[in-house]
């Protein structure tokens, strides 16, 4: 190497060292920031998580199992499962239908429709419950008519299911609309032109394309349906064994100072939340992120 090239190399190395110190933080700054982040997450998020399991098993397995085997706890678990079993499939069907209409066709008022679909997310759970009381309650809009026909919605399981359907309304649609928008309609059009029927096109082309986004939306929808508290609290009337969901049962037990039993039922809901988180992050990292990256590349017109 000629001498001036060596000097130039040294200069370059010096310059790069200066860049490097300006491009990242000093080790002590990094360590402090990591420590701060870990401490905040531990204190704010992990501590409550630990408390649930510690207090659930505080008095041993025996008390834990007894709290779950209690007939009133069972009826709460059944009502929660029933609510999710009705609400989640209907909201899923709605989400797919809405996403199909919104992303495969152009029509007037589309952006208004998208805004209205998101509306339940902007509403306090308490207000979500209130509007159903105003609609179906004794003093409500349809109340007198319902009484005449002997139908009970408020302070009955029907109200709980309806309020839950309201709060979980946007989950599936919100996940599918951006995904199907990015995918476009060419593949479906090609299938139709090759002679496939509409249903066949949907099941063979659309469903395989959207399955991970769909599953993601369903999982989030289900977690919220089983965990909803504020909205169902307003419409439930808290009739033990009849209109108590798991979250409402937790509230009653806790307010009766039956802490171990309250946390035992809460621990089931917490396991559901943890399973939801694991599935969510798996679907995100394994399927949705690669899929979205691929769609972004295609939309820029890059060659594969």
């Amino acid at each position: 190497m000629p001498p001036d090239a060596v000097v130039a190399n040294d200069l370059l190395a010096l310059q790069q060292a200066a860049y490097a110190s300006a491009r990242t933080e000093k080790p002590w700054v990094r360590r402090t920031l990591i420590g701060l982040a870990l401490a905040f997450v531990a204190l704010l998020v992990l501590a409550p998580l630990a408390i649930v399991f510690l207090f659930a098993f505080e008095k041993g397995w025996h008390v834990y199992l007894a709290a779950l085997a209690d007939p009133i706890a069972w009826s709460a678990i059944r009502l929660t499962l029933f609510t999710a079993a009705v609400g989640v499939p209907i909201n899923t069907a709605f989400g797919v239908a809405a996403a199909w209409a919104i992303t495969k066709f152009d029509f007037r008022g589309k952006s208004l429709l998208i805004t209205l679909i998101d509306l339940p997310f902007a509403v306090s759970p308490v207000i979500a419950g209130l509007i159903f009381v105003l609609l179906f309650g004794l003093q409500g809009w349809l109340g007198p008519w319902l009484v005449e026909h002997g139908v009970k919605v408020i302070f009955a399981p029907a109200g709980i299911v309806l309020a839950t359907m309201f709060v979980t309304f946007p989950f599936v649609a919100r996940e599918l609309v951006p995904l199907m928008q990015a995918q476009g309609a060419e593949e479906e059009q090609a299938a139709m032109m090759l002679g496939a029927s509409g249903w066949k096109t949907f099941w063979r082309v659309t469903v395989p394309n959207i399955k991970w986004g769909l599953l993601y939306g369903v999982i989030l929808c289900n977690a919220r349906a089983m965990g909803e508290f504020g909205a169902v609290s307003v419409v439930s009337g808290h009739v033990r064994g009849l209109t108590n969901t798991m979250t409402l049962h937790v509230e009653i037990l806790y307010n009766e100072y039956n802490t171990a039993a309250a946390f035992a039922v809460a621990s089931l809901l917490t396991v559901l939340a943890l399973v939801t988180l694991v599935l969510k992050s798996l679907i995100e990292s394994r399927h949705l992120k690669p899929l979205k990256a691929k769609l972004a590349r295609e939309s820029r017109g890059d060659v594969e």
Partner: protein
Amino acid sequence: MARTGTSRSRRARVLPGFGLTLGFTLAYLGLIVLLPFAALVWKTSELSWGDFWSKITDPRVMASYRLSFGTAFVAGVVNLVFGLVVAWVLVRYRFPGRRLIDAIVDLPFALPTAVSGIALTTLYAKTGWFGSVLDRFGIQSAFSPFGITVALAFVGFPFVVRTVQPALEDLEAELEDAAASLGATRLQIFLRVLLPSVLPALLTGFALSFARALGEYGSIVFIAGNQPMKTEITPLLIIVKLEQYDYAGATAIAVSLLAASFVLLFAINLLQAWSQRHHAA
């Protein structure tokens, strides 16, 4: 969302199912969302303006607004600072446990609010892990605005992290290189280059966290103590009015709270538009 280029404009109605899917969508939307909202409008229209005004400016209601807005604001600011730190650390550094922390950030989204509520109350009660420590410093944490703020910080935390994280990931390394080659120090680069680029995302996260906190009920009702004029949040007051069969009062307060949510939603949309322009520039 992402533009898909020219392909979308050429889309013709060769696909079937438009009537079926749009019909089902509108019918279901009408039944589950619009009909209950119509009941709210109906109940509100039965109130005279003076009646409505006196119901939403009642001293007990005003005290609840002050508490709800105040605690939601403080919780939002706490999340703004720590949400940025956590998002920064997750995007920029590699350390053991990073993926676990990344996943656990969403726990407040997934955990039912009643469970968060009783767990936080147990932690911050006088005999709890944190409550006993704070009590030694003369801070009453549970059954006070302090406890409400902690619970609101808990529920709002993922919003800030999850809006700031993608903004940090999208930052272009060239900008930092350019600033570095012009002789800027690391702190200058952070304050002058990085922070302004993620500011729209940060504010969006703050607004989302604030909006969620305003309507929050489940995680607050256990830790708040629920004393009128002191620790009674606005959503709880709606339930109190309902339990007294004061439907008109509950409706009026709900409408005022909804109005605040819609203003925030509008602000969030503006922020997101700003953020996208920022991104495109």
